C-alpha cells in the first residue's frame, strides 16, 4: 500500500485532473482535454473513468462500481478492488450507500442525490466523430454550434430503419449549448441525466473529460415528427416484477430458456428484499439472503 500514493495517482496529476473536471462543470457538455496517464489496466477497461474517480475520491468516500448495471462483472470487480487496494476506501453494491459511483453503460435506477458523484467510462467522447473524422473540424463545429451533422445521423437512422434506431450513446444537447455523447448508456437512461448528482465523464484513450452539473437541462435530440422515446424491452422483470426498469435478456438454461430481468442488479435485489416477486422469482425471506 505504501508503494502507492492515495488512489494510485500522484497529487500533481490529481490536481491536473481536478482542474479539467472543474472546467468541465463550468462549461457543461464541453470536452476538456487532459493529459491522460498510463493506468495499470488496458484502455477499454475504463482508464478515463478510473482517473476521474481517483481524482474525486477522499478517504471518507464509499465507492460503487457497475458494469452494464451489475456490480459483479470482471471489469467492475477489478476496478473496485483497485481502489480498495490503492485508496482503502469503503466499497458497496448499494446505490444509496455510495458517495462515488463509477459506471460503464448504465445509470442506476435509484434516483441519485446531491451528495453523490456519478463517473462514466467513455470510449468515444466525440458525438460528431463518425460523420466528420477531422478533429479540427469537429472542434470548430462545437465552437460555432454548427450541429446540423448530428441530425444527419438521426436522419440516416430513420431512412434505414423507419425509426431512430440509435439505442445507445444517444446524442444530447446540454443546457441548450453543447452536443454531447452520453457514453454508451441505453437511451432509456437519457432522461435520468437531469439529476441531483454531479456527472463526470472520462475518456482515457481520447484524453477528454466532460461534465454535467446537478439539475442541468439535458435534451435528447430528435425530429418533430420522430420524437425521442426512452424505450426499453416490453414487459416486467421476471424476478422483481418491476415494469419501469431497463431489462436485460438472460439465458437461463441449456434449452435456450430466456427471461428478462432488471439490468440494475442492486435495484432488483432491493425490490426482492422488499417483497416484490416476479413471474419467475421466488419469495425472498430474510433467511434466503
Amino acid at each position, binding site marked *: 500500500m505504501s508503494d502507492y500514493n492515495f488512489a494510485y495517482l500522484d497529487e500533481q496529476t490529481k490536481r491536473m485532473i481536478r482542474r479539467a473536471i472543474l472546467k468541465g462543470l463550468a462549461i457543461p457538455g464541453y470536452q476538456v482535454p487532459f493529459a491522460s496517464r498510463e493506468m495499470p489496466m488496458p484502455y477499454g477497461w475504463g482508464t478515463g473513468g478510473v482517473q476521474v474517480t481517483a481524482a474525486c475520491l477522499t478517504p471518507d468516500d464509499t465507492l460503487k462500481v457497475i458494469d452494464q448495471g451489475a456490480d459483479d462483472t470482471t471489469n467492475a470487480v477489478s476496478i473496485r478492488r483497485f481502489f480498495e487496494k490503492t485508496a482503502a476506501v469503503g466499497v458497496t453494491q448499494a446505490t444509496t450507500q455510495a458517495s462515488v459511483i463509477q459506471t460503464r453503460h448504465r445509470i442506476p435506477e435509484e434516483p441519485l442525490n446531491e451528495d453523490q458523484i456519478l463517473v462514466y467510462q467513455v470510449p468515444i467522447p466525440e458525438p460528431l466523430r463518425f460523420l466528420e473524422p477531422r478533429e479540427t473540424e469537429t472542434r470548430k463545429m462545437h465552437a460555432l454550434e454548427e450541429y*446540423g451533422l448530428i441530425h444527419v445521423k438521426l436522419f*440516416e437512422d*430513420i431512412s*434505414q430503419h423507419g425509426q431512430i434506431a440509435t439505442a445507445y450513446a444517444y446524442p444530447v444537447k446540454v443546457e441548450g449549448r453543447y452536443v454531447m455523447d452520453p457514453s454508451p448508456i441505453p437511451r432509456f437512461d437519457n432522461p435520468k441525466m437531469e439529476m441531483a448528482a454531479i456527472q463526470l465523464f472520462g475518456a482515457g484513450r481520447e484524453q477528454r473529460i466532460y461534465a454535467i452539473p446537478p439539475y442541468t437541462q439535458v435534451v435528447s435530440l430528435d425530429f418533430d415528427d*420522430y420524437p425521442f422515446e426512452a424505450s426499453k424491452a416490453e414487459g416486467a422483470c421476471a424476478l422483481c416484477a418491476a415494469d419501469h426498469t431497463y431489462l436485460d435478456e438472460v439465458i437461463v438454461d441449456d434449452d435456450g430458456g430466456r427471461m428478462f430481468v432488471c439490468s440494475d442488479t442492486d435495484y432488483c435485489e432491493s425490490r426482492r428484499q422488499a417483497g416484490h416477486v416476479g413471474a419467475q422469482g421466488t419469495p425472498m425471506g430474510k433467511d434466503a439472503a
Partner: protein
Amino acid sequence: MTPLLDVQNLSKYYGQRIGCKDVSFDLYPGEVMGIVGESGSGKSTLLNCLAGHLEPDSGAVLFDTKTDGLKDTVTMSEPERRMLGRTDWAFVHQHARDGLRMGVSAGGNVGERLMAVGARHYGDIRAQAADWLGRVEIRADRIDDRPTAFSGGMQQRLQIARNLVTGPRLVFMDEPTGGLDVSVQARLLDMIRELVRDLGLSAIIVTHDLAVVRLLADRLIVMKDGHVVETGLTDQVLDDPQHSYSQLLVSSVLQV
C-alpha cells in the same frame, strides 16, 4: 443596381510567389462569370479566396448580405462567413467526393444543408431531398443509396442538388465537369445551364475548358500568372481576344 459581389484589389501570395494579384470585378444578380486560364494561372486561388476557403493578403470581397447589404466577407467573423457558406453561398467541387459525404445516403447528403439551418421535420426534409434528386435526374428510388454506388456523373449531380437545396444566391464552381467523360460532361453542362436559368442563379465558374464558359458564362476573366489579363463579354473574348495570351488560349482550344 447593387452588385451581388464586389471584388476589390484582391491579392494572395504564397511566400514570395503570387497566387493572384490585384483582382477586381463586380458580379450582378443573375450573372455568370467565367474565370479561365491554365493550371497555375491563379484561378483556383482566386475562387478559394472569394469563397472564404483561403484568406487573401489584401483586398476586399463585398457581398450583398440579406441583412446588412454589402459587407466585406474577408473581415467578417468566421461564424458569419461559415453561415453564408451554408445559406447564401454554395460551392461545387471538381471532385464530387470533396463535396459529398460518401458514407451518407443521397437523401442525407441533400438534407444536410436543410438540417444545418434548423430544419427538424424528417418528412419535410426527405420530401425536399426527393424533389431535388428529381431535378437533377436521379431516380427517387436511389434516395437511400450512398454516393459510392453512383456513377461519376450522378455523384456530380448529387453534389449540385446538395448545394442548391437551400436556395443559395451565389454558386462557386471549380471545374464542375472536370474528370468526366465527354458525353457525361455535355449532359451535366445542359443541366447546370437550365438550373442557372430557371433559378436565376449567380455563379462564378472556374475552368480551363472554354466550351464550358462558352455555354454558361455571360462574362469572362482571363488569368495568367496570377494576374487578370483580359475581361469582357464571353463571346467578345472568345471570338475577338485582345490580349496575346487570350489569343493563344482560344487558338489552342480550336486546335483540339
